[in-house]
């Protein structure tokens, strides 16, 4: 399966999904003009990848700022991952935020609250 690489722009994050290592990275601010259009290939890739692979998978998200539509996409994404965990997949989410970005930390805690089986760690960095 091909990797998915999308360059970062001012309003969309960098996407780097590596099918070989199972490391999926989303990094940068997210407030696309058209959220569905931007994230449709991202969700599609993950869906296909999870069907295709039994590899352990880590989703690393470092999104310091995101709009409400992006948060809806993230919830869809986490639900998708949680379903896969329930079906036996080994998936781990790392929600990475700068120590001083309280907003991102609190949002990470909000996301975590809804998840029962998907491991979701808030990782603070300098």
């Amino acid at each position: 399966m091909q990797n998915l690489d999308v360059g970062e722009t001012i309003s969309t994050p960098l996407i780097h999904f590596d099918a070989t290592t199972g490391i999926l990275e989303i990094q940068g601010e997210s407030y696309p003009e058209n959220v569905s259009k931007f994230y449709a290939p991202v969700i599609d890739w993950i869906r296909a990848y999870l069907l295709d692979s039994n590899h352990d998978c880590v989703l690393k998200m470092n999104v310091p700022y995101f709009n409400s539509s992006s948060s809806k996409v993230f919830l869809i994404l986490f639900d998708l991952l949680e379903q896969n965990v329930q079906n036996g997949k080994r998936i781990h989410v790392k929600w990475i935020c700068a120590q001083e970005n309280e907003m991102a930390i609190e949002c990470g805690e909000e996301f975590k609250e809804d998840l029962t089986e998907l491991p979701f760690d808030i990782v603070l960095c300098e």
Partner: protein
Amino acid sequence: MEKLFGKERQVLKKAEELLRTSQFDSDADQKNYRILYEEYKVLLRQSIRVVHLADRVQLELKTLLQELEQISKIDPLTKLYNRSFFMNCYLEEWKKAEQAENSLSVLMVDIDFFKEYNDTYGHIQGDTCLQLIAEQFVKNITAYHGLAGRFGGDEFIILLPGTDLAGAELVSEKIIQDVRDLQLEHTGSKTFGKVTVSIGATAIIPTADIPFMSFLQHADQALYQAKRAKKNNVKPYIG
């Protein structure tokens, strides 16, 4: 008002009730209904979460906006208005006074021998001196609904809406006295060996044909006269 998502929760409750009492024509119907119910439950949870997240972000943005607004208005050292915000207020008050044919006063204030103060005591103590003096302005202009701004290094400007020249001179005298009463030692000063201020005062009833900037120049000229005279005094502008 009921809870924000009260109606949605009622829908869920009703659906649960229906599933429990099995009022369905067939098992297939009941199964499909259950699938829809489960999907709705997930989507509702997502919607609630999105609203919570948005509230959180908006609150953060609102706080940041207030901080930025404060920074854009206030001189961080003296907590008086900065020059640009003061000028906005001045323009507004000028227009109000013109419409109401009311008088408006401006005081231009300068600390006597402040360069020497900084040279003698250092800039940190110089900053403290500026803060103490700014406090004397605030104390004396509050009753007049006045506005005080820091114009530059040790130069300040005070606006007194609805105040004539006699009132402006009175406020000036009180400020001069209060600064003197601070008894801040200033060996480099040629007045009392204490920190003092000079003030140029001017008053006007604005009209459309008077350029509002010229009024500030009047105050500046009066301040120049006060400094040239003996310092530690107020000089009114005599046009």
